[in-house]
């Protein structure tokens, strides 16, 4: 009989469905083909004019019907598309999922196009007063729904028949990983056999771009978009704003095997630690990120010599890549120089709220396919960061375990450990 409990006596959590959408395409197959051939999805922005903008490139998802319909509708479509692939692969009823939903999505705001339309539908008085008066005369709920933080999850819950009150969460750039962690914890507590964890982000609006730009967080390598995201390179100059989604069907191993589902991987550990140093910068000694990595390893019951590959947060900002190197080299010691560590963001950019889920999906595929996607644009290594970043070309390798890092503004650090087989 298979062992259904982990080293702490908790139900082992299996992954039985994976879905993904990025600027590289819809679905695992297209994404994996592009990712392993080192293709970049970063391209010039066409969704809105780029006049006055310092950054004019992104990894936006421009090929969905909702791509130009605002952040809320696009985020929903991204989430739905990835979830549909995952639930379909898991062989579960796509309209009656039966477990809880955990959605990582960006904070919502009234879209500027709606704001303009509301405002200019009237001439009386001005500013907020006019907006409020027009608002209360609206006959449809469409615009209202885009401003409610729970609405995307509510629609997804309807669409997939998830159980109970859906949880929408934000831990900034770690959100996708947190959504998975919440699903894992719910299964471990015995609250459910299955959970649907989704990270989705379609919020690459002009205002979002400008906000990150004002914080000097974005790359301005506009002339050669495909080369702009260059994690761990000496001339890295910021991340590339991007969109995407990742969805996992999580399931207790016991329930998965009992219904004859294919087990695609194991979610064996989650770790987190908040940083109290600064709103955007990490504590200089890297201790919170170090603690998050160690917590994930401990949760998985693995030693620091038992991780085969690291799917890096690797944003391509000067700060992140330096700090990630510091924390990884502290945890893994000398071994770090020979461990493969690659950043999917070199090709897809930073999908923000979705990143943790997208990269968990790619981590699981890395193990299944025995191929490590490269870190592209690694032409000018940062001499202060000595890592095997799987430069520029994919690598065939047997990967039994992966550590996937997610770090975010607000001191958010969340790490996931995944395994190919139950231990």
């Amino acid at each position, binding site marked *: 009989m298979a062992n259904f409990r982990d080293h702490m006596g908790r139900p082992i959590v299996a992954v039985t469905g994976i879905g993904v959408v990025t600027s590289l395409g819809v679905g695992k197959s297209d994404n994996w083909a592009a990712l392993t051939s080192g293709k970049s999805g970063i391209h010039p922005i066409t969704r809105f004019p780029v006049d006055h*903008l310092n950054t004019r490139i992104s990894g936006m998802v421009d090929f969905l019907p909702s791509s130009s319909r605002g952040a809320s509708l696009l985020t929903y479509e991204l989430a739905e598309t990835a979830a549909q692939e995952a639930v379909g692969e898991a062989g579960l009823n796509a309209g009656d999922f039966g477990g809880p939903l955990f959605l990582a999505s960006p904070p919502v705001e009234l879209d500027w196009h709606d704001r303009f339309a509301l405002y200019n539908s009237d001439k009386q008085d001005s500013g907020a007063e006019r907006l409020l008066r027009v608002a*209360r005369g609206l006959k449809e709920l469409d615009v209202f729904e885009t401003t409610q*933080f*729970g609405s995307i999850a*509510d629609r997804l819950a309807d669409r997939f028949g998830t159980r109970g*009150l859906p949880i929408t969460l934000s831990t900034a750039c770690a959100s996708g990983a947190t959504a998975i962690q*919440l699903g894992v914890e719910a299964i471990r*507590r015995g609250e459910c056999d299955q959970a649907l964890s989704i990270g989705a982000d379609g919020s690459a609006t002009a205002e979002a771009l400008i906000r990150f730009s004002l914080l000097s967080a974005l790359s301005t390598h506009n002339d050669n978009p495909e080369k702009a995201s260059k994690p761990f390179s000496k001339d890295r100059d910021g991340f590339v704003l991007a969109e995407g989604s990742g969805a996992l069907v999580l399931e207790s191993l016991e329930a998965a095997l009992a219904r004859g589902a294919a087990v695609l991987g194991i979610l064996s550990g989650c770790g987190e630690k908040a940083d109290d140093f600064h709103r955007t910068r990490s504590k200089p000694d890297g201790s919170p990120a170090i603690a998050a990595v160690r917590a994930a390893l401990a949760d998985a019951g693995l030693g620091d010599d038992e991780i085969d590959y690291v799917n890096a947060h690797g944003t391509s900002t000067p700060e992140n890549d330096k700090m990630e190197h510091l924390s990884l080299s502290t945890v893994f010691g000398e071994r770090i120089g020979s461990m493969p560590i690659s950043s999917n963001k070199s090709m897809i950019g930073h999908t923000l709220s979705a990143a943790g889920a997208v990269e968990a999906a790619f981590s699981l595929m890395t193990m299944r396919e025995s191929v490590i996607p490269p870190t592209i644009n690694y032409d000018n290594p940062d001499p202060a960061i000595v890592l095997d970043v799987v430069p520029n070309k994919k690598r065939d390798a047997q990967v039994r375990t992966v550590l996937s890092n997610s770090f975010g503004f607000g001191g*958010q650090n969340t790490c996931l450990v995944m395994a190919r087989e139950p231990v």
Partner: protein
Amino acid sequence: MSSPHDVVITGIGLVSSLGEGPDTHWQKLAQPSQKPVLEAARFAPYTVHPLPEIDWNLQIAKRGDQRQMETWQRLGTYAAGLALDDAGIKGNDELCTTMDMVVAAGGGERDEAVDADILAASESRNDRDVLLNEKLTTELRPTLFLAQLSNLLAGNISIVHKVTGSSRTFMGEEGAGVAAVETAAARIRSGQSTHILVGGAFQTEHSDMLLGYELAGYLHRGPWKPVWQRQGAEGGGVVSGSGGAFLVLEQREHAASRGRRIYAELGPVVSGRARRARGELDAEIALLLKQAAQPNGKLLAMSGASGAHAATSAEKAALDANPAISARGFATLTGHMKEAQFPFAVALAALAVDRKAAYPVFDAAAEKPFEGIPASVLATAIGYHQFEGMALVNAA
């Protein structure tokens, strides 16, 4: 029967138009015929319950930290500090660095002047997307993004109060507050956590915060009325209020081992998502009531009812249908505090249990007196638009 893994409440931090802290709230709310604090002019035709005077320095020592936040984040960080103080955790490094946190958050305050300026310019411009780029790149304060970002309330609590065990932010109006309390309690019961800071804040004195309701016509207009009496009045029934509520939830054993006073035990926390368009709300409320509380005798209920017509009348009908229940619609005195509404309801329930006394009626026309000592108190939050939750709070 108490068990070591019970969830107990050892700290309460409250801010509303009535003042700050559990004692002030108890004194005011226990006072018969307490009058609400109202601001009817600033946002006319809407009435709000405004923030009281707050000396931010008392909980956010560094001016630099205060400057990095807009009022919503300051308010939440302040209320969180009150709860940590109350639980004897503030300043205790060991307890803070191992403390988990779940914050229920919406968004923070946009720059109203910049927005108004852009909107005014849009009347004479057809290239509105270019206008946006032009204005936003030059007029936005660079750090405003962080001062309004949802997860940065939790981020600021980490920075100011050093709570760093874990940090999660749930979004989704009242439902976020319900899920935050529910998840925190589940983590403690299962042994995943020993002590958790949970709560939220809402700063309604900003046009976008009113717009968030009014895009669906949810706000009450015209003369103020108690929360149960707004059916048929002009507008949608919601009168919002600024406020915050944070709780320190703790494993009973953990609280006992450090000799802390316990306000109350947090019993079952239940939640739901009625598909209201299909008419499921009545049944959902009835189901939650059944799951949260099977009163053997009379039961006091701290209702988070918002005043929104459909949700509030459904909740009222469900509560009235059980003659053992005496409900108190506290939004009559605080206004609706969105993400903070459910944590606030749980806090008020815990106070009643702790003080061994019920609150007097907040609205003599719609509520009935409760005589005797409430051993258990129900807390509810039926979302003005979606999501529902309840909890039963028991004597320690």
